[in-house]
Each structure stands twice: as C-alpha cells, then as structure tokens.
C-alpha cells in the first residue's frame, strides 16, 4: 500500500523574533513556532496533525503552502523543492496545493457572489473560457451538495456549514493534488461537522486527493486520518498509524491529550 511520497519536509523551521521592550531598551526574543519538522505525506493518504492552540500546526500548514517563508529546512512537493521556488513558480504551484481554513465566513469575500468566488481560481490561472468556468462552478457547487441557484447569492446568506461547502468547492475547482485542511470543521455545529467530514471523504475518493488535516480534536482526527503526527511546542513528538496512536500512545503529551477527550457513558463502553 506504500505509495509515492507527494510532499516531504526536511527539518522545516520557522522562527519569529519578538521585540520586547524593557526598561533598558529592546530585547529580542526568538520564538520557535515550528522546530525541525520532518514529515512525509504519501499520495492518497490523509495525514492528521494534532495539537493545541499555539503548537505551530497552523504555521506548519502555511509553510508547506509557502504562504509564509521558512526560516530553515526544505519542502519538496512531487520531488520539486518548493522552498527554492521564485514567486511565479509558487503561484502556479497553487494549482496543486489548496487550503481550506477554519472560519468559513471570513474565508469568503463578503462582496462577491458565490459564482464569482468559485470561478476566481480558474480566472487567476487563466484556465478555460468564461462560459466553461461558469459551468465548472455550477458542477462543483452540486458536487459539494449545494444548488445552482445558490451561485447568485452572497456569502452572508448562507449558514456556516454551507459556507464551508463553498470553500471546499473553491479549493477543489482547480483539481489540486494536495489539500491542506486547517481545522475545517471546528467552527461548525456538531451536526454539521459530520456532514462536512463525510463530504471531504467522498471528494477524496472521487478526486484521489491527499489531505493534510489539522485539528485539535482527536476524535475527529482518529476518524478521518490514516496517520497522525502529534505536535507540541513546534515539534512533532509522536507520529504513526492513527489507530495505533489512539490505542497505544507512547509520548506523555499524547497520553494527556487522549485523557482529556470528554467521553460520554456510551463511548466508555466501547
């Protein structure tokens, strides 16, 4: 089942320098948001990155999409070193790597109609004619469980779950190979979370997607991912098969995380 590596990071690092003003002038303090992270993501798999707020998981997501530049280390996508790419190359790389963010509303430009939002990625990369783009947008809209009529509406007319569906449609319209989901369901209601997770799984099968799934929710990650990497203070403290980690965690922090999951009476019996 071992398939080719799609994305690989080698000793990836990101430091932020915080300037602290003290009574006697400025003092620079270096914050290591991501510290020597080496990970490989295989074609077609889902890698979960778990950690609590401030552990560096979102920074990691932005590093591998080159939304921010690393302080050290390398990222390879499909054997090409993306950390060495110039801006125009990075822009065309976006066709292959897409992101879905946590806040479904804030991810959408409030002044654009859904149709314009969905056709924008195609427009940016100059793909197809205007008419074909519209058709593709309608098709994508139906794929994520919305209707054609929704195309003429504005984001504020939708619920959070529907907005996240629009975000997913926009991310997938370019047919990317890798999709990075940064807490895609944590802002949604419980009953909507399951819908969106199922949708992401369906789309993964249909488009043969590879996912990097970032979340703080171990239940969701265990369900959704093949492998898990646990991140703590910028470092990967444990990684491996999802079920193994869930059943037999090795690192203390992983154990602590697992113990903190609220369990209802029913699931205790499981």
């Amino acid at each position, binding site marked *: 089942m071992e398939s080719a590596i799609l994305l690989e990071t080698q000793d990836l690092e990101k430091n932020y320098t915080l300037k602290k003003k003290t009574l006697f002038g400025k003092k620079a303090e270096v914050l290591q948001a991501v510290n020597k992270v080496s990970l490989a993501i295989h074609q077609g798999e889902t890698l979960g990155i778990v950690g609590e707020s401030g552990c560096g998981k979102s920074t990691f997501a932005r590093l591998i999409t080159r939304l921010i530049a690393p302080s050290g280390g390398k990222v390879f996508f499909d054997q090409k070193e993306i950390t060495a790419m110039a801006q125009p190359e990075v822009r065309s790389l976006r066709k292959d790597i897409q992101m879905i963010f946590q806040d479904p509303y804030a991810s959408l430009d409030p002044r654009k109609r859904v149709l314009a939002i969905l056709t924008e990625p195609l427009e940016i990369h100059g793909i197809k004619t205007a008419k074909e783009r519209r058709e593709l947008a309608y098709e994508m809209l139906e794929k994520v469980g919305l209707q054609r009529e929704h195309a003429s509406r504005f984001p504020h007319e939708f619920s959070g779950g529907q907005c996240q569906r629009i975000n997913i449609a926009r991310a997938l319209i370019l047919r990317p190979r890798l999709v990075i989901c940064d807490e895609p369901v944590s802002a949604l209601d419980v*009953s909507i979370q399951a819908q969106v997770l199922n949708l992401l799984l369906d789309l993964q099968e249909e488009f043969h997607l590879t996912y990097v799934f970032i979340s703080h929710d171990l239940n969701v990650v265990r*369900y959704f991912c093949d492998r898990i990497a646990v991140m703590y203070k910028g470092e990967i403290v444990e990684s491996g098969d999802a079920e193994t980690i869930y059943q037999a965690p090795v690192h203390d922090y992983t154990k602590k995380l697992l113990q903190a999951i609220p369990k*209802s*009476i029913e699931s205790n019996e*499981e």
Partner: protein
Amino acid sequence: MSDDSNLLSVKDLSIDFLQEKTAVRAVDQVSFDVKKGEVLGIVGESGSGKSVTVTSILKLLPENARYTEGSISFKSEELLSMKEKQLRKLRGNEISMIFQDPMTSLNPVFTVENQLVEAIRLHAKLSRKKARQEAIRLLQIVGIQEPEKRIKLYPHEFSGGMRQRVMIAMAISSSPSLLIADEPTTALDVTVQKQIIDLLKELQQKINTSIIFITHDLEVVADLADRLLIMYGGQIVESGPAKTIFANPLHPYTRLLIEAIPHGNKKSGRLPTIEGNVPSLSEIPQDVCRFKERIPWIPDQAHEINPKLREVEPEHFVRCTCYKHFWMKEAHEKK
C-alpha cells in the same frame, strides 16, 4: 412550584425578538427547574435558543427582546416583575455568570487584583486589604499557583485557561447560589477544557452551588451534569437525568448529536449525519415537529401536530412521537 428544593424555576418561558416588522420566536415554551446543588446541562447548536434562555434569567437580553409568556422564579421570587434595582442585587451576587470568551470578559487595562477586589467589595463590605486576601484565597481555590504573585498581572499575561479560572474566581467571589456557565470551555484547548470541567465539578461539591452549563457538545457535560435539556429551534426536545439520556437517548436529534461525534475510524464507514442545516430562527416551522425537515426518512404521519413534551419514563421527557420511528433510518440509508 412551591417545592422548596427548587432554586430556580422557569415556566413556559417564551421570548420574541422584534425584527423590523416581524417578531421572531427565539425561545418557545421552555420550562425547567434547577434544584439546589444540581448541575443542569443545556445542550444545543447555534440558534437553539440555549443562550437566550439563560441570559433571560438575568434579564440581560438585548433591547429588541420581549418576554411574551411565562415566569422565572428564583428562590420563590418572580424575576420578570422585579425592579432593575433588585435585579442588580441578584446579578453577580446570588446568580453569577461566566462566558465563552475569557479574553473579552476581563478589562485589559486593569490588573487581575483590581478587578477581583472590586468584584468582592461590590458584594461584601470588606476593607481593601481583607478583600485582597479574599482574592488570593479565591485564586487558590480555582487552582492558580502562586496567587500572591499572579494577582498583580494583567489579563493578557494569562493564558486562555488561566483567564477562565480568573473569571470563575470572580464569579464565585460572592458565593452565588447559581452559577451560569455559557460555553465556558469552547474557546479552550481540550486539555484545558478538562481542567476547567474538573474545577467546576470540584467547586460544585465544595461550595454547593447549582450550575447551569451551556454547551453545544454533549460529551463535555457527560460527567458533569446531573440533568440535561436538549434544545432545538427554541424548544426543549428532550430532557431528563443525564445518565438516562446517555443510556437511552430517544429524540432523533439527541441520538444524532451523540452519533455525530466520531468514535471510531474510517473503516467503520461514513458518519451518521443529520441532513440539512441548522435553521435560522425565522425559518423554523411552527406548529409542527421542528426537527421534521432534517429527518425526512420518518413519514409525516409519525409526527405530531403541535407536539408537546411527554414523559416517557420517570423524569424523562421527549417531544413529538417521531422518535418511535427512528429505526427507519437504516432502511433509508440502504437506499
């Protein structure tokens, strides 16, 4: 209602929000009691009316809200007819509240000491020095280490979990008989969430306050709450002792809420879902089972018209008869 063990008793409470020309019902005929020393969990998603219900207890609703029906009595006194002056005495004294966002609930320009001492002196006639000692004692209770040092810090110097602890310290400073916690752990990390829940449990036993705990996540209240109310579309759809509800959830919404939280891995198949969206208040169907649209596999005739809460086993109430047809879901999914 003359039952002395009831600290708070809400009866047939309905609240409307006025919007331009129409009135939208946010809370519809909600009744519940909170007994002394009891933890009541109110569970529901956005738009379920859970937050409106509890903020209405303190009469802190926005200006366009109207109490159209019902009564709220606290220690056998009617709150709805109470004067603002009397209410102010209750707020933060007899009834305290903690909110979701500990970041914005504290004033960033004052130290924790300032705010805590002020809160204490608002309710008890203590000297500054005494109040400070009390503040340190409270911080100790809520599990903040080295309280003598930390008390001098500003809110932004605390982590999210610590800030929520400070909020709790402030809320219990008046030894309230009722503590209302509105999603106090939603903004926090899981490990911190567990600590806060444990803390509330401990406090509840130590000082014997009643707690109303509001959350969108059933599992969070699983081992905290004595009783549960499940709300949907402004109504209570199921209520009863927490143990009973977890052992025997009946209303389709409750069942789906429990099932929607993943407990296995991908190999166990797709997650059971609830179709459709959480409706906004103005879209909610009236006079019928409000959950009808989201469980299309249950035939229309299985629903009641104008469904009422019915006691199906001792203390366990369910709205609408549709729950009896939940089994049809499997057949529906096979299709």
